[in-house]
């Protein structure tokens, strides 16, 4: 069972991460790089944008290692994608081990659920942001993000798998609750990059993540079912 989960997660994570890197390199990364030209053009504004506590965390960025633009940056982004993708794939494979998908296509539904939990729901409150965008304290946003993802995961699970309507209703409440509480927002909304770039980045981020999740769901379900027959 452990081998089956590990094999499924490893291979599907690897393939989905490569797809994600490909989509990113052509679509998302150029937008990030363009936004960084505004950021480096206005270093004082960037400092301000990060807020007091955010800036404190960023003061060390000159000392810490950072990949150089070009192949180093692409390689380290690929590494980051790989770690995240294998992590998500492990969660999917673990769920499959409890509830085996009857067809590989069922994996696409699990993938869409993953997209809803880890991308769609958190971005409703905290939209994908380019470097140089004003935002609330990092710790608070991370806490809200994790809370929203957890509530959405639990809410979706109750809504789909619960039998009793009252439990289903509880699931629906859990889906809505984080957005009623509201994401931590900055005092002043401001961005160094032009709004058109920001809007384009949001769409690029949503679509690449959706493609990544559907691919990860399909691949993992297919591999998981395949390794049972082997």
């Amino acid at each position, binding site marked *: 069972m*452990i081998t089956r*989960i590990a094999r499924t997660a490893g291979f599907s994570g690897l393939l989905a991460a490569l797809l994600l890197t490909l989509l990113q390199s052509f679509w998302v990364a150029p937008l*990030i790089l363009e936004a960084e030209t505004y950021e480096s053009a206005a270093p004082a504004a960037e400092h301000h944008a990060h807020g007091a506590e955010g800036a404190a965390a960023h003061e060390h960025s000159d000392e810490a290692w950072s990949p150089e633009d070009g192949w180093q940056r692409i390689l380290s*982004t690929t590494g980051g994608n790989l*770690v995240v993708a294998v*992590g998500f794939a492990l969660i999917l494979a673990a769920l499959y081990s409890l509830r085996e998908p009857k067809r590989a296509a069922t994996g696409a539904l699990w993938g869409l659920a993953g997209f809803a939990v880890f991308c769609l729901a958190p971005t409703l409150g905290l939209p994908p942001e380019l*470097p140089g965008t004003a935002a609330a304290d990092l710790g608070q946003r991370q806490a809200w*993000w994790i809370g929203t993802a957890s509530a959405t995961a639990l809410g979706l699970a109750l809504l789909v798998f619960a039998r009793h309507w009252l439990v289903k209703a509880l699931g629906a409440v859990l889906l809505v609750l984080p957005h009623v509480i509201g994401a931590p927002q900055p005092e002043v909304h401001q961005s160094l990059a032009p709004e058109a770039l920001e809007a384009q980045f949001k769409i690029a981020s949503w679509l690449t*993540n959706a493609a990544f999740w559907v691919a990860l769901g399909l691949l993992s379900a297919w591999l998981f079912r395949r390794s049972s027959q082997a």
Partner: protein
Amino acid sequence: MPVTSAKHSIATPVTLSQRVVIAVGASLLGLCLVYFAGFSHIEAVHNAAHDTRHSAAFPCH
């Protein structure tokens, strides 16, 4: 579902509680990986996975 799980338990004798433990363990490992790449405050990790974080819409800066 009951049919497949019955068949499965003959092939590999794994009890339900063992399966749950394995599934929870794998999920936790997966969450740790995502947390490490996406949320860790270590500066070098942040810089390396910077574009991953922005692209995945994790809170970054």
